[in-house]
């Protein structure tokens, strides 16, 4: 079953298509004695303009590959990728912003200069830079740290710097690749609130990759559940949360239902992935 291809009827029939994956697969070619790896697909995905979409799946299922293909960071082996009606080809389209799991803040620049990085490159005039960076830092709660260097900040704050750096470019599609994966559970919930605020304010479409069920259930309009490698969509869960929401939603009755449904699919897949990685470690090397 493919996400978005079905089960999206009813109340949002007017939703406009924003980005699309059609029959996308990704096979990593063989390198130095290793077999080729079929990492992803085939998958179809229709992202609607302005929605919050999460992808959950067991580790190693190709979630991040999906994001990088959509971003234009990796070419698909088969299938087509488009953003705002134009095919994505070989480079990241204008209007797409990506925040990565790894800390990608620049340690050689102050928080302010980190945030201003993309605008300076683009030759935006200094008053406009001043305005947009100040705004983004204030929004991310970094105003008091603008002169600090990333090394002086906590992991959560550094990830905020990366988000601010992406935000100032005013992306219309924001791709988040497990941005809170390295943070502790409480900080993650709070960062989730930040992302919801950001989503409402910018009106951007958000695709979030995560392995945390509660995170996906709490933040998203729709959640795509992926299988073990090669990753495909197994189910698509519509949460029907109101637009104005935050982390307190975890205490609502519907929340338990959503996470239960996600876990129902994921339990078996996670077990498979566990076995897969064991097998890969034992016999992944091709006998040349």
């Amino acid at each position, binding site marked *: 079953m493919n996400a978005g291809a079905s089960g999206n009827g009813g109340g949002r029939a007017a939703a406009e298509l924003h980005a699309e994956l059609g029959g996308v697969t990704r096979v990593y070619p063989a390198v130095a004695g290793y077999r080729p790896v079929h990492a992803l697909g085939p998958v179809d995905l229709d992202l609607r303009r302005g929605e919050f979409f999460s992808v959950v799946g067991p580790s190693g299922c190709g979630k991040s590959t999906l994001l*990088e293909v959509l971003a234009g*960071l990796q070419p698909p082996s088969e299938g087509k990728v488009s953003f705002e009606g134009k095919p994505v080809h070989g480079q990241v389209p*204008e209007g797409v912003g*990506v925040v990565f799991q*790894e800390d*990608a803040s*620049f340690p*050689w620049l102050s928080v302010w200069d980190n945030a201003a*990085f993309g605008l300076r490159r683009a030759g935006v005039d200094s008053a406009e830079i001043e305005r947009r960076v100040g705004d983004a830092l204030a929004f991310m709660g970094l105003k008091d740290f603008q002169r600090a260097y990333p090394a002086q900040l906590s992991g959560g704050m550094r990830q905020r710097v990366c988000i601010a750096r992406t935000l100032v470019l005013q992306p219309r599609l924001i791709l988040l690749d497990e941005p809170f994966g390295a943070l502790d559970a409480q900080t993650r919930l709070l960062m989730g609130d930040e992302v919801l605020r950001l989503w409402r304010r910018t009106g951007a479409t958000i695709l979030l990759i995560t392995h945390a069920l509660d995170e996906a259930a709490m933040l998203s309009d729709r959640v795509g559940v992926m299988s073990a490698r090669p990753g495909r969509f197994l189910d698509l869960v519509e949460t029907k949360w109101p637009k104005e929401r935050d982390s307190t939603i975890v205490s609502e009755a519907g929340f338990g239902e959503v996470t239960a449904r996600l876990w129902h699919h994921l339990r078996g897949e996670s077990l498979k992935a566990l076995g897969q990685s064991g097998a890969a470690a034992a016999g992944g090397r091709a006998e040349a």
Partner: protein
Amino acid sequence: MSRIGWIRLAVLAALVALLETLVRTGIIPYKTMLPPSEMLTALVRLLAAGTATRDIVQTLTCVGAALVSSVVAGFGLGVAIHRFPRVRRALEPFFATYYAVPFFIFYPVLIAIFDLSLLPIILMGFAFAVIAMCIATINGLDRVPRVLGKVARMHRMREFETALRMKLPAAAPHLFTGLKLCVAYSFIGVIASEFILAPSGLGHAIAYAYNDFDNRTMYALMLFVMIVVVTLNMLLHGWEQRLLKRWHGR
């Protein structure tokens, strides 16, 4: 200065004082060693008289030339080799052997080719330093986080801009280590060459003073070399610490 800094200074002062007493009381014979205070006065006199100025200028010029050329060439070489993994894997055993073989033995060959000019001296300093810079550059580029490459592509940077804005600053701490080694090795290469065979320069002047039983000049010049090298080292160390502090916090 930190507490450790003060202790270090006290230890060094105590060592100098010990040497001073040992020589003054005759436990170390006067013809072997000068008391440090006399080394210093001899150095001040030597500098005031200006007799060593020519040698000093020559040596520092050679070190400077060797340093600049080795840093530039080593960096360029490192970047080039890093781009071609196959070349790199073939060269690795040679890099690992480079500082293990006594290649300064070929200094006389250089003299035979270029005559007794400054060029063989500069070349020896260059040869000592260039590979250290090259290795440091490769190590630095290895440790540039992969995610920065993705960030660069998100910003639609071309290769040159990625190198300039991402790889260069991200590799900076390693490049700095390379620079520090280059300073030390340029000095070692140049002064050792001058010592072996040269018409002038600090190394030559020290060897000459030794053969001439002129301990005063010899120790004064040794002290000069030590002061210059240690001062440079301390400056670079301080600069590096400030850089690393920003990098790693605290």
